[in-house]
């Protein structure tokens, strides 16, 4: 029941905030601030009291539309817990970051913000495919309004593009869900949308391939993977600060989570067949996103494109599919949520002062706003994966895990570390260094703004230097990668085994085996 409250509180708070806004704007803001905080506390409490040994911490299930086998079923394992916590944390900060910037239609703004928060939390918890799809759709509409009503110049174009991309790919997923529903129903005689029942559904490999691709389409758009990433820079850069934070920090994570929770476990064989191509796509995304980021003249667009690059690491980690890479992928998800969310908040704070995102009009701002500069520098460094920040832990684990599967792809992906330096330092250079040509003079961060940024710095450093709590939480959920162990898959498709390439094959057999045994021994 706690899980239901986690979702219901923001939903209710959204309605309440909308109603209250006519009387008192400040009450509306406070309710929106406190509701995600309460959900955060509840989720943390549920996680702490959950069954720490098992994979699943808390479960809740009631029938919803029994005739069609639909139930209201929520499950929280370590990964869901971490992502729900991230959702509510960023939601609090998004409300705080909009404290001054949003002055029009305040009630409706917070209603949308709360509903999208609730829907995302629901997406991370749902274990009924129909319910997941419902949350998926509920997420979309408030975001559309956030962009259309409070966005920047090209907001209508961006919102429609975002809507069409997500909706079209979401419909493919619906087709996939229904296909799986009927295949399973025909084979087992029980028609159900229950996630656990649908796992291990026997089906022909071509059917699995098609259904997997339908799911993959939806998640790849959300993630986003190249080449369907093009909605992202428009949506991110046109959305208001809170919208960008939610989009970059959370909505992209729903795509990654969908791959991790649904697409791969439901169709392991198909995922294994396609994984070399998808991993290649991921590496292309890492490098292509970085190249695009460097080329931008609009600060917010630049930050938006860095997401394409970072989410490439997540995609790579998920399809490398070993404990190390998966832990890394989830760590990158959290780290990216924090660091890119922070960058969008900082860009928003800058925008409130200079009213432009044009890099050509900036420069030399360190002089007038050293605190803003210092925080931006920190998150630019986090973005380039500096050791000591959470991003490093994630990216390193992803690459280390990928190296076991495919040395060449890991090496090319590592070039992304160089490309990240180029765009991250470019941000600092163009905004804060160089001469202050336009003679900007403005007040540095207020205490409220400093507190937001400092909270994000603290999380990034904590997860970078002592990620043990995070890894302990997500570890059990990823250790036995949900339904399929490597041995249930055809041996030639096994991903978890390292493939030796080149370097003296005869020699490495000995040490290799000891390592995988040692790794295996460590897991049980």
């Amino acid at each position: 029941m706690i899980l239901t409250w986690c979702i219901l509180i923001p939903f209710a708070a959204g309605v309440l905030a909308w109603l209250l806004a006519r009387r008192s704007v400040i009450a509306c803001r406070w309710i929106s601030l406190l509701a995600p905080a309460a959900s955060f506390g509840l989720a943390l409490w549920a996680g702490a009291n959950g069954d720490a040994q098992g994979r699943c911490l808390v479960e809740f299930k009631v029938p919803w539309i029994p005739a069609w086998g639909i139930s209201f079923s929520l499950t929280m394992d370590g990964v869901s817990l971490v992502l729900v916590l991230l959702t509510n944390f960023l939601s609090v900060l998004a409300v705080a970051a909009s404290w001054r910037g949003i002055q029009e239609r305040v009630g409706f703004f917070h209603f949308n913000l709360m509903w999208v928060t609730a829907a995302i939390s629901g997406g991370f918890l749902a274990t009924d495919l129909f319910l997941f799809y419902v949350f998926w759709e509920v997420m979309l509409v408030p975001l559309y309004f956030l962009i259309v009503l409070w966005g920047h110049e090209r907001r209508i174009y961006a919102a429609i593009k975002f809507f069409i991309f997500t909706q079209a790919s979401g419909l493919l997923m619906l087709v996939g869900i229904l296909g799986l529903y009927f295949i399973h129903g025909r084979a087992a005689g029980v028609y159900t949308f229950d996630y656990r029942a649908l796992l291990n559904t026997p089906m022909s490999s071509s059917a699995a391939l098609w259904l997997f691709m339908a799911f993959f389409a939806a998640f790849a758009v959300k993630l986003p993977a190249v080449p369907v990433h093009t909605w992202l820079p428009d949506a991110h850069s046109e959305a208001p600060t809170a919208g960008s934070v939610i989009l970059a920090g959370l909505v992209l994570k729903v795509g990654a989570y969908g791959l991790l929770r649904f697409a791969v476990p439901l169709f392991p064989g198909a995922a294994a067949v396609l994984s070399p191509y998808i991993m290649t796509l991921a590496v292309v995304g890492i490098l292509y996103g970085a190249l695009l980021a460097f080329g931008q003249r609009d600060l917010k667009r630049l930050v938006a494109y860095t997401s394409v690059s970072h989410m490439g690491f997540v995609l790579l980690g998920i399809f490398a599919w070993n404990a190390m890479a998966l832990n890394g992928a989830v760590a990158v998800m959290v780290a990216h949520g924090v660091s890119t969310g922070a960058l969008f908040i900082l860009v928003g704070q800058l925008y409130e002062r200079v009213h432009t995102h044009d890099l050509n009009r900036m420069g030399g701002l360190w002089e007038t706003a050293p605190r803003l500069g210092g925080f931006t520098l920190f998150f630019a460094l986090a973005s380039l994966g500096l050791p000591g920040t959470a991003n490093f832990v994630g990216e390193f684990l992803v690459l280390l895990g990928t190296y076991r599967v495919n040395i060449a792809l890991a090496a090319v992906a590592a070039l992304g570390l160089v490309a990240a330096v180029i765009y991250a330092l470019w941000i600092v250079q163009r905004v804060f260094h160089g001469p202050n040509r336009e003679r900007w003079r403005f007040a540095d961060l207020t205490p409220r703004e400093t507190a937001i940024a400092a909270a994000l710095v603290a999380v990034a450093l904590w997860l970078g230097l002592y990620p043990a709590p995070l890894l302990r939480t997500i570890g059990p959920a990823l250790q036995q990668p949900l339904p399929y162990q490597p041995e249930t898959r055809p041996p030639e498709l096994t991903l978890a085994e390292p493939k030796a390439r080149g370097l003296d094959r005869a020699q490495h057999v000995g040490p290799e085996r000891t390592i995988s045994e040692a790794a295996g021994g460590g897991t049980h």
Partner: protein
Amino acid sequence: MFGLLWLIPALPLAGFAALALAGPRLGRRASAVVGAGTAAAAAAVCAAIAIRFFESPPPGHAFAQTLWTWISVDGFSPRIELYLDPLSLVMALVVTFVGFLILLYSAEFMEEDEAYSRFFAYLDLFIASMLTLLLAKNLLLLYLGWEGVGLCSYLLIGFWYKDPANGRAARKAFIVTRVGDTAMAIGLFLLFTRLGTLDIPSMLRAAASQWTQGSNLAAAAAALLLGGALGKSAQLPLQTWLPDAMAGPTPVSALIHAATMVTAGVYLIARMHLLFALAPAVQAAVAVIGAATLLYAGCAALAQSDIKRVLAYSTISQIGYMFLALGAGAWSAAIFHFMTHAFFKSLLFLAAGAVILALRDEHNMFKMGGLRRAMPLTFWTFLIASCSLCGLPFVTAGFYSKDMILSAAWGSRWGGRWLCAAGMAGVLLTAAYTFRMVFLTFFGPMRARPERKPGLRMSIPLAALAALSVVGGCVELPHYLGGAPLFSDFLRSVFVPMPQDGSGTVTPLQIEILLQLLAALLLLLGVYLAYVFVLAMPGWSARLAMTRAGGALHRFWLAGWGFDALYDRLFVRPFVRAAEINRRDFADSIFAGVAEANVRLHRALSQTETGVLRWYAMGIALGAIITILIAVFA
């Protein structure tokens, strides 16, 4: 006592945190006290630990201190763990002491600067990162320090951020070294995947037991780590960032780009020397790269007119000597040269900084001159450091360390004669460019009047480092002088002589003395050439530069052998161009095309809505006919 090890990096880190949080509110005096004070405290702790280490070394000459487990996933569990052995102790001592002296110097040097506290914050962060790098027990923690010093280098090169050129130099340094770091990261993936740990001692044991000498995996791992070392230590072909790094304040150049950070690559190879011993081909490459770099940079130094760029190329060249020693298997010689180099090169930078400050930020040596009487302390310390750099026999520290490298190169199992010849040619070049610099700056006619003399806070570091540049060699006197190799003995527990490592044969005494004689002659020749071309016959060099070949060579050397232009054309411009061309994202044009096609179709179909009844009737008729035809024939 050893339990206090964690304080060594923690103290400067605390200094950084205090300065970063309090910022300029702290005031100038307090900033300097916090900045230099924490470094001094770290040096004191380090010294106390060192004394304890000499008196009663810990069992196995190594002490490990675990702070916490960093990451723990699926058998991969690097810890935040410090490791003290003679090698890291020597390096940490040099870093903390030289670091403290340079911070003291900076307190006066940077006095006029508005961002006083930011400067000390960055320097403290640098010292903390460098100490983490040195004291790390596993390669991942070492990598943290490694990237940390790279970050500080970036921050301090671009310290005067208002000039875009400084920002460019800073980014260049970060990006070029990051290329090497990426190779190193891949090396870590390989080492962990094959050996199952990144903990340095156990990893080296595993490597020695699992890999035979000359195995491809050992070679690949060593080569990838070497990539990282080349970037950080500015060796060919990743050396291009260091001369530009001189854009930073001079104390930064002294500390980071001469004494400490740039020798991190030397430390890495020395730390992993067992792995390099398993890969003789890579070790030979280390020696060849070192030899090539020392000649390359020596020639480039001859053509520079900016005093700091001369010193930068000189640093590249001297690190080339260290690489040469590493390649020849003379591990302790490389570390010994690191130590003496830290003394005399940071002194050269600090003295040059005093000159630059006195002449109002003048870097061009051709606008200096005759400063020997106006700035006696600066002159004498600069001269002492120059002699040490050239290796003036018997009285300077540089002589002993360079001598050790030259005789080790001779005895190297592989191409020893050639390596030694390169080292000898380097001696000539070193003497020539060093004394060209000394003569141009301190002799001849006075071209600019110094406005100030170094005060106490600048003079103390100069004097202290000058003393070290002279007596620093006493820890390793050659046998024929009746000395004892204290330094190598101290490091013996780290660099255990092994039958199969690349240390080669011991050079006989006669040859060693002969080599020294030759080196001394070349040194004198170099000084003489510098004297002739700079002081005695200044017209000669001008005439030489007028000739076509001479002029071309001068430009070639001045531009660092054209590496910048080459990389610019090969990497920078294509990347920037590609980013510019693709600014609007080619992939988006596909979707934009779909949207555009829909709009066009919409317009085309709208055209048919004319309101003319006859058209509609014809449309209906045509449609009916086609439907009937299909029904009949299909």
